[in-house]
């Protein structure tokens, strides 16, 4: 059946893309083939509108064992013969219409990217964005997403160790659900997503193939509309039990050495895995679709080619060693069925009951091969004019700073996320050191070594909205700062680039400048980009979401004893502020949510200043001169101090700068500032080690368990903690 242009455009292809397919094949494609190209050339799989700029990011470094884009996830050397595999990915569109399954399969999918490389996932993180908490739909979305993440992760048995959640009205229709997985593997034991050796058998392993998730990649590459719920079959359904068995079976199979390559089936299912593996190995395949185990009868070829049923892998095995592999999957009661073989001819030939139903060159489908690459236009967003108009003098300092602080601490973007994270198993695998000693980045131990991994996800998208270049630099810097505050050395990042429609020149401006900022910051901190995911089309009738380039960063601690925590430890310890307070309330939670100002510039930030801060902080932590470290971020100095105080219930007494606005000192979010505590006996040594870095001794930890600011008593820490801990729960549960 010859496909028509109308069918092609209905599947999301552009007219010139349909022409390009005809050129490649030298004939008009049939419907199955058009369907394959439509998903493989969708934004989600091909990166056609982003790859040009992604290539400008630093993607190489001494510690990178695999370059960005070469495999399913990045691989970095963490020493002692261990490698760390990690990646972040979005599942925004599915979560917008079916939050539970959307989030659950997001978690399942990202873990598969990690263990398909032979690594065992040891930590899960996420980054979530929702609309306003007081909207009933938001509450439905949050509850569904949190339950979905918990459902999958808790059963799969990998701890959810960290994350971030923000609520802004721009995410009302388009929530963001970004999931990150971090795994570890012995260097040299990794598996590649490749296929070669004519005659080698190709197996599908794991769950049966159903009609769920058909066209999910294309669905993720269009704006969300009120009709999106009709795309419900585009949402996949997850089974974490199946994936847990698949994980154990795959990790048991790898040491046999019987494997040529393995790739998980995520977006575009069989089409994507067969084409990407074949293109990488410069071979082709013959695939018999009728041999694929299915969940329902009479599935059509294109349905099988496009199905995004979860918990499946494609593996290529060395001929003659099929039995070894089969035995392991039998042990775990998992399907393992040969569906084809590798060919020297580089075309992919798919048969159904002996009939050839699709015949395309593997290379023509994939990114870096035949997939189109576009340059998009961009122009300075008009709303920048609004941002320039902001003047701090238009904001009157509140008479009651304590009340402002009280409101701020209970605002959903700052208040404790306890209601959320207690629904996640954060402790399975007995590696999460956060449970009993909180630190800025979560430090997870690597069993079998002395090492710890410091992991974090960060992005303040309001900053990026105000200034895409600076905002993206801040996102990278904050991630690195969190890792340094935890005693680690930043190593590399993965990114999840959530933006609106790339055909909107203002959105594309945000994208381009965010990439530039990210690149500059990553070069400065020597943290290359190992891979990630682009999610465009996060936009509805209300407009695009804030540009949200989420950074997932991994750092290394050579021994766990290097870990630094945030908590105030002993009364009498001195409190130092490293960096400088400024007359700056730009873009702060305080300005946005308490004062109600929507447009203001990004907060103060200077990359060199940030670098120096982190460099000196590494020294003083390494030399054991500080007892706690916590960076100042959302909510400013005040929120930071309360967070340090609450852990052990100790109080603090501080004095603020006389020549600055009080609200700017307490609630401003100027970057490159960290609060540390120091044993009074070590003042001299500590201050000497700072060598030129600006710092102020602002007060001390008190034993009365009270908050005292400029001689005003703000009450007991325990009362602030109660308000902080329970605020979100009250808003969500009512």
């Amino acid at each position, binding site marked *: 059946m010859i496909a028509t242009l109308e069918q092609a455009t209905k599947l999301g292809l552009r007219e010139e893309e349909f022409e390009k397919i005809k050129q490649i094949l030298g004939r008009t494609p049939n419907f199955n083939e058009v369907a394959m190209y439509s998903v493989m050339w969708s934004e989600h799989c091909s990166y056609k509108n982003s790859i040009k700029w992604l290539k400008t990011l630093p993607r190489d470094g001494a510690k990178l064992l695999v370059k960005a884009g070469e495999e399913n996830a990045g691989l970095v050397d963490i020493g002692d013969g261990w490698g760390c595999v990690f990646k972040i990915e979005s599942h925004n569109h599915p979560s917008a219409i079916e939050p539970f399954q959307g989030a659950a399969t997001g978690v399942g999918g990202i873990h598969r990217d990690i263990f398909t490389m032979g690594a065992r996932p040891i930590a899960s993180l996420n980054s979530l964005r929702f609309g306003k908490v007081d909207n009933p739909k938001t509450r439905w979305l949050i509850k569904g997403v949190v339950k979905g993440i918990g459902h999958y992760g808790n059963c799969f048995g990998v701890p959810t160790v960290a994350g971030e959640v923000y609520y802004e009205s721009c995410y009302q229709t388009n929530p963001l659900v970004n999931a990150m997985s971090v795994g570890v593997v012995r260097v040299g034991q990794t598996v590649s997503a490749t296929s070669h050796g004519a005659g080698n058998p190709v197996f599908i392993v794991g769950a049966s193939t159903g009609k769920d998730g058909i066209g999910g990649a294309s669905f993720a590459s269009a704006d969300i509309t009120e009709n999106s719920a009709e795309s419900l079959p585009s949402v996949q359904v997850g089974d974490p039990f199946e994936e847990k068995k698949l994980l154990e079976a795959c990790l048991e199979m790898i040491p046999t050495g019987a494997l040529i390559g393995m790739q998980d089936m995520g977006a575009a299912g069989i089409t994507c895995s067969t084409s990407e593996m074949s293109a990488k190995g410069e071979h082709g395949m013959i695939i018999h679709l009728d041999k694929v185990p299915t969940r329902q009868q009479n599935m059509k070829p294109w349905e099988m080619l496009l199905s995004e049923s979860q918990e499946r892998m494609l593996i290529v095995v060395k001929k003659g060693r099929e039995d070894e592999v089969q035995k392991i999957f039998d042990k775990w009661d998992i399907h393992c069925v040969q569906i084809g073989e590798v060919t020297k001819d580089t075309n992919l030939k798919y048969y159904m009951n002996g009939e050839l139903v699709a015949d395309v060159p593997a290379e023509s489908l994939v990114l870096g091969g035949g997939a189109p690459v576009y340059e998009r236009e961009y122009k300075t967003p008009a709303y920048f004019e609004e941002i320039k108009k902001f003047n701090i003098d238009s904001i009157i300092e509140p008479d009651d700073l304590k009340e402002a602080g009280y409101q701020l601490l209970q605002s959903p973007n700052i208040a404790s996320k306890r209601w959320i994270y*207690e*629904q996640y198993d954060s*402790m399975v695998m007995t590696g999460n050191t956060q449970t009993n000693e909180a630190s800025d980045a979560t430090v997870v131990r690597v069993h079998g070594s002395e090492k710890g991994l410091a992991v974090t996800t960060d992005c303040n998208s309001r900053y990026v909205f105000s200034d895409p270049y600076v905002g993206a630099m801040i996102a990278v810097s904050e991630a690195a700062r969190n890792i340094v505050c935890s005693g680690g050395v930043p190593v590399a990042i993965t990114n999840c680039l959530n933006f609106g429609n790339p055909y909107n020149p203002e959105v594309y401006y945000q994208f381009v400048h965010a990439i530039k900022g990210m690149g500059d910051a990553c070069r400065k901190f020597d943290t290359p980009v190992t891979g990630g995911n682009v999610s465009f089309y996060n936009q509805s009738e209300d407009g695009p979401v804030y540009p949200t380039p989420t950074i997932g960063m991994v750092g290394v601690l050579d021994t766990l004893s290097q870990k630094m925590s945030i908590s105030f430890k002993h009364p009498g310890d001195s409190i130092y502020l490293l960096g400088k307070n400024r007359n700056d309330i730009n873009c702060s939670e305080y300005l946005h949510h308490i004062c109600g100002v929507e447009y203001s510039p990004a907060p103060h930030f200077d990359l060199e200043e940030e670098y120096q801060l982190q460099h000196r902080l590494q020294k003083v932590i390494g030399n054991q001169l500080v007892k706690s470290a916590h960076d100042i971020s959302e909510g400013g100095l005040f929120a930071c101090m309360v967070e340090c105080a609450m852990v052990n219930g100790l109080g603090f007494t501080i004095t603020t700068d006389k020549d600055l606005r009080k609200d700017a000192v307490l609630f401003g979010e100027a970057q490159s500032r960290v609060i540390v505590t120091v044993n009074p006996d070590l003042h001299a040594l500590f201050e000497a080690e700072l060598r030129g870095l600006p710092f102020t001794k602002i007060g001390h930890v008190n034993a009365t368990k009270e908050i005292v600011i400029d001689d005003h008593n703000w009450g007991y820490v325990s009362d602030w903690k109660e308000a902080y801990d329970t605020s979100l729960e009250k808003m969500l549960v009512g």
Partner: protein
Amino acid sequence: MKFGVIVFPGSNCDRDMQHALQDDLQQEVVMLWHKDRNLSMFTKNDCIVLPGGFSYGDYLRCGAVARFSPMMEQVINFANNGGKVLGVCNGFQILCEAGLLPGVLLQNDHQKFVCKNVYIKSESTNNLIGVNVGEKALKIPVAHGEGRYYADAATLKQLHDNKQIVFRYCDEHGEVHINSNPNGAINNIAGICNEGRNVYGMMPHPERACSTALNNIDGRAILMALN
């Protein structure tokens, strides 16, 4: 003396238990596969552990399928002959399903999964664990969606009269009250034993509290009690 840890499909605390027993407590551990039927290398001095997780995906009902696995037949015989058995979390659910312990574990009263540190307190010194852990409130994590212990009045009376209640949820000072109950368990019950005092089940995870690297070793005394 040695420990045997059963691996069911979907177990996910099996390795944690192995690490805790082997690395933190220097015990001999043998991992056992659910499809096997051989426990002949274990004597009455040894202890079989059913770890936490989602055996068989928790399909049908937590523990309901695992209870029929070939290895469980052997464990039931082993327990009936006086061998020591410990079930943690999903393991506790399996022991109740298998009839080795009375009562059931229902969905948490708040209908959400809960993972956090809680405190538990030994109820009696009339069992192996109680005599080893003393009266101190122990900080042990829970992580479950179905951990609300329930039994009818007659069973509860029996548990009470026979001193079969091993742990109750309490606060950090050892006070047992409703606010320290993470799941709505009846009478704050966190763990019990059988009449013969050789089979133990508890919802909190002692294996998650055995390592100095995690800053909590309150679980050690619980596991070592079965050595």
